[in-house]
């Protein structure tokens, strides 16, 4: 699908969101799946309130805080990368993307440590309903973080080779939009699974 977004002069609104329109259709499909997941979690909890509240207390909120801050920060770095390429600064764009990837690595490391802790305690998908949702929801999101990092790495590689310019940087905006979606989903997942009871 061809790019439909052009950067308009200040003050003018665009007809389409930044990036390739195909990624937005993909993003909406992904968001719909996560919405179903969230609603299913909430309605399953409705019939198991005590169980969900009890085991939610066992989760590591410090790790979740670090991960939330990591994703918000990485999203900000990606915004800076897009701003840089819109000014034609490819190498600055690459640096911001690498910084965002660094935050992604931090997220994966912290989440992996959390999983390691759970698995060493004998917790798995069949432990109870809460852990079934917690593990499947967070792992599904974990896979999206990896996917987002692969996309950002590919964009950074192309930017490093001078593959984007002021006139043609749809690829950077496309990767950025996907990464923001990953952040967006976590911003709902974090309070729902770790805090709300």
């Amino acid at each position: 699908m061809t790019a439909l977004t052009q950067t308009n002069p200040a003050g003018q609104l665009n007809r389409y969101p930044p990036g390739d329109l195909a990624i937005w259709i993909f993003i909406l499909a992904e968001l719909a799946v996560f919405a179903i997941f969230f609603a299913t979690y909430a309605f399953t909890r409705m019939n198991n309130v005590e169980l969900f509240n009890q085991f939610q207390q066992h989760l590591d909120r410090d790790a979740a805080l670090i991960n939330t801050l990591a994703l918000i920060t990485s999203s900000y770095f990606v915004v800076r990368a897009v701003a840089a390429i819109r000014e034609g600064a490819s190498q600055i764009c690459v640096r911001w993307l690498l910084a965002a990837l660094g935050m992604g690595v931090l997220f994966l490391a912290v989440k992996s440590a959390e999983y390691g802790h759970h698995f060493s305690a004998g917790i798995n998908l069949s432990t109870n309903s809460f852990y079934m949702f917690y593990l499947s929801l967070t792992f599904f999101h974990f896979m999206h973080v990896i996917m987002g990092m692969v996309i950002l790495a590919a964009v950074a590689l192309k930017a490093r080779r001078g593959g984007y310019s002021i006139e043609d940087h749809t690829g950077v905006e496309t990767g950025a939009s996907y990464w923001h979606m990953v952040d967006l989903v976590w911003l709902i997942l974090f309070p729902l699974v770790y805090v709300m009871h």
Partner: protein
Amino acid sequence: MVALTLVTYSIGRLGLSGLDIALGVLLLALIKGHLIGAYFMGLNRVQGFWRWPVTIWLLLPGLLITIAFVLAEG
């Protein structure tokens, strides 16, 4: 967004619970989500159909989660 995240974390850390608290935490999350959509994704510079999907996405699960938590309380 960082400040709102720290508020959410503090509520969890303090073990505050109850329907009002839970829905307040959810509201903070929806506000953060709106900020991501509007300013990071750049949808505040878009007109027409494509301006709204993220907002609608936030409201839909937000509403369903609210209903589930209210029913769980009752």
